[in-house]
């Protein structure tokens, strides 16, 4: 089961994001297309950094704690999921706080 450790961390972050979305009715689901474009930008920038850092051995992963699927340049698939799940939860938090505080209500 240890190969699911990194995936477990991602699941935790993802559950937080989905929970915030449902709990606060952020409307993110209706704007999924905007999120996809946003995330594409993040994926390009941060996977480039990640690929380079892994290549240069700035950081590395315990092979026993990842599922072992790599996409390119030795990037574990968990890293790609990380750059989807974290921005998703970030936007969800932002939208929930916007709704909760009523700040910037005049702003689109």
């Amino acid at each position, binding site marked *: 089961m240890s190969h699911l*450790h*990194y995936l477990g*961390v991602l699941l*935790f*972050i993802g559950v*937080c994001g989905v929970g915030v979305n449902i709990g606060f009715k952020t409307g993110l689901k209706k*704007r999924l*297309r*905007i*999120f996809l*474009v*946003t*995330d594409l*930008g*993040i994926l390009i*920038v*941060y996977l480039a*950094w990640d690929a380079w*850092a892994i290549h*240069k*051995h*700035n*950081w*590395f*992963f*315990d092979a026993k*704690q*990842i599922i072992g699927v790599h996409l390119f340049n030795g990037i574990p698939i968990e890293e790609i999921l990380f750059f989807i799940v*974290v*921005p998703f*939860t*970030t*936007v969800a*938090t*932002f939208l929930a*706080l*916007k709704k909760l*505080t009523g*700040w*910037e209500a005049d702003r*689109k």
Partner: protein
Amino acid sequence: MIYSDIALDAIMIAIIADLFILRTQMVTRGLFWLSYGLILPFQLLTNWWLTSKSIVMYTPDAIIGRRLAGAPIEDLLFGFSMILLTLAFWEFFSSKFSERNG
């Protein structure tokens, strides 16, 4: 200390993108800082989770060596740049798409 250098560059790029390229002005908005303040403890929690179990490890030469919640201090810069860029992109594309639709 290459991670340190790139993390600093990432912060500057994210701030320049936010203020001058995307013009989303996130760093001047209270809502951004409130969001960051709420996300930060969760970043520290997951950093601790990933590093205390050695799921991810760092080459000592790549970092200055100071750690917070198990992870290199550089991770704070990495996280800040990513949260800022995510929300700047979100705001930028939100206004672009609504212009097109309305």
